[in-house]
C-alpha cells in the first residue's frame, strides 16, 4: 500500500459533471496506485484540509480523479481550479474497499457524491468478478445525478437510477432497487457510499444475509488518525467503541457499525 505523503499534483483536466459537481483529474502516479475507497485530504484556504475520495484511479496513465459537490467555501475554491493548476494533497489515506469476492454477485450502491468511489471500485475490479455486477445510483434530481454515463460505459445492462423527485429513473431512494436486488442475490456483496441515513438503511437491509461494505463520511481534523475527530461508533471486543473514519475507515463492514 502506498504510504501517505504531502505533495503537489497538476490538474490535467477539469470537468463539470452535473450542477455544482466538478471532477478534477490529477497527474499523480503515486495516488493512482491507491485502493478505491481511500481518499485524500486536499489543501484549500482555511484551517483544515478537505477529504475527497478517489473517483477514478488509473495506474497505467498515472492519473487519479476527485469528484466533488460544491457545498461550501472549500469545495467552491476547488471548483475554481483550472487545468494546469496544482493541488496540494495529503494522501492516499485510510482503508479502501476490499477486493470483491469473484464469485459473489456484486452490487454498487451510490447516493449523490457517494457515487464516485464506487466508480473507482468498479473499474478496478470488474474484471476480477465473474458473478453478476449491478449498480444502483441515486440523486436528489436529474440535475444532480453524476457518473451515470461512466457506469454505463462499463456495465452492459441497465443501471438502476432513483431520484427523490422522479425527474429521472424511479422516484424514491436506492433502497427500493437494492431490496429487489438483495431478494434475487441474498448472498451478494454490496459496496455502498452516500448519506448516513442511506447507509444505515443499507446496513439494515443486509443484516439478514450477504455482506455490505460502507464508505463513511465524518468531519475530519488531521486525516491520519492523530486527532480523534472523525469517529463513528463501532462494535468492539468489549462493547461499543469509537473508530476513526480516516484511519480505520472510511470503509467499514456494515455489521461493524452501530447506528444511533
Amino acid at each position, binding site marked *: 500500500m502506498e504510504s501517505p505523503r*504531502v505533495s503537489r499534483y497538476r490538474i490535467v483536466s477539469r470537468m463539470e459533471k452535473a450542477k455544482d459537481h466538478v471532477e478534477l483529474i490529477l497527474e499523480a502516479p503515486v495516488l493512482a496506485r491507491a485502493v478505491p475507497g481511500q481518499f485524500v485530504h486536499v489543501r484549500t484556504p482555511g484551517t*483544515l484540509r478537505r477529504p475527497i475520495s478517489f473517483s477514478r484511479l488509473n495506474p497505467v496513465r498515472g492519473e487519479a480523479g476527485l469528484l466533488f459537490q460544491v457545498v461550501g467555501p472549500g469545495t467552491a475554491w476547488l471548483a475554481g481550479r483550472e487545468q494546469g493548476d496544482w493541488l496540494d494533497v495529503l494522501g492516499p489515506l485510510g482503508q479502501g474497499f476490499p477486493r470483491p469476492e469473484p464469485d459473489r454477485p456484486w452490487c454498487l450502491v451510490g447516493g449523490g457524491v457517494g457515487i464516485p468511489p464506487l466508480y473507482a471500485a468498479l473499474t478496478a475490479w470488474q474484471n476480477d468478478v465473474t458473478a453478476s455486477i449491478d449498480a444502483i445510483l441515486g440523486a436528489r434530481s436529474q440535475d444532480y445525478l453524476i457518473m451515470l454515463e461512466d457506469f454505463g460505459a462499463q456495465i452492459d445492462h441497465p443501471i438502476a437510477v432513483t431520484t427523490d423527485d422522479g425527474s429521472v429513473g424511479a422516484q424514491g431512494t436506492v433502497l427500493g432497487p437494492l431490496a429487489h436486488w438483495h431478494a434475487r442475490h441474498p448472498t451478494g456483496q454490496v459496496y455502498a457510499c452516500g448519506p448516513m441515513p442511506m447507509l444505515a438503511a443499507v446496513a439494515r437491509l443486509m443484516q439478514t444475509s450477504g455482506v455490505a461494505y460502507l464508505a463513511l463520511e465524518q468531519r475530519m481534523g*488531521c486525516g491520519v488518525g*492523530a486527532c*480523534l475527530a472523525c*469517529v463513528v461508533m463501532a462494535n468492539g471486543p468489549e462493547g461499543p467503541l469509537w473508530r476513526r473514519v480516516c484511519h480505520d475507515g472510511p470503509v467499514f463492514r456494515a455489521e461493524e457499525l452501530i447506528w444511533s
Partner: protein
Amino acid sequence: MNLAVRVGAVRLANPIMAASGTFGFGPEYQGLVNIARLGGIAVKGVSPGPWPGNPPPRVWETEGGMLNSIGLQNPGVEVFCREDLPFLRTTKTRVVVNVIGRTIDEYCQVVERLEAESGIDALELNISCPNIKEGGMSFGQDPEHAAQVTRAVRACTKRPLWVKLSPNVADPGAIAAAVERVGADAISAINTVVGMAIDVKRRRPALGGISGGLSGPAIKPIALRVVYQVAQSVSIPIVGMGGIRSVEDVVEFLMAGASAVMVGTATFAEPGTMEAIIEELPGYLARLEVSSVHELIGAALPGR
C-alpha cells in the same frame, strides 16, 4: 546557530514541540513528520481508565481557527503504557505525557502508574481542557484548585511537572503563580479557548459536544497575552502555544516570555509545519542578529 533550550531540567534540541491532542501518541504522523527533528512531542491526554470522549461531529472550522470537542477520548494509562510507550521510547525526542483526571485522585493515579515507566521526559498536567464537565476544567479556573491538584501530583513524582493553563479565566498569572508555589517546574500556555458554532441548517450547535475548544491562528493574540502575563508572574519557564504556524509566530512567543513552544492545529493542514520552522529558525535568528534562541526569551517583557 544554537537552537537548544531548556525547560527547567529538560533540555530540548530546539524549541519546537508538538502540542498535546494534535499529534496522537506519536506514530500517526510517521512518514509525514520526522519526529527525531522535533524538540519534543506532547501526547494526547491520558486518564486512569479509558475515556469515551464526545459524540461527533468533533471538529468545526471557524475563521482563522477551528473548534474541537474531542472530549479527551483516550484508552487510559494502562493501555497507554502497554501499547504507546514502547514506540515513544524509540523516538529520539523529548516525550511529554499530558495527564488528565476528573479528581485529584485520578490525576495522581495516572502519574503514579507512569512512575514505573521509562521514556517520559516530563508530565504536562492538563487542568484546563474545556471539553470535560466533571472537573478537568474547574481545576484550572481558580488558583486554589490549581494549586491543590499540582501539590498532590508533585508529591507523587520527581519528574519535571508542567502545568497547562486554561485561557478561560480572568487572571492566568495568579493561577501560574499558585502552581509555581507548590512545585510546578514549568507552565504550558494555552489550552483551547471555549467557543461554539451553530449549524444553521440543522438549527443546532454544530459540535456533538455542544461547546468546544477554539484553536489556531485566531487565538494567537489571546495566547501571547497569557504568556506575557504569566512571564511576569512566575520565574519558572513557559512553554507557549496557540495558533503558531510560522517562525515569526515562534519568535513572538519567545519574546513574550516562552522558553519553548508547541504547534498544534497548524500540523493538520501542513504536517511539515514544525520541521519547516526548525529549518527556518537559524536564518531568522541571524537576521534578528542574535546567536541563540535564548537571547530572545522574554525580550519584549517590561524592563528588557
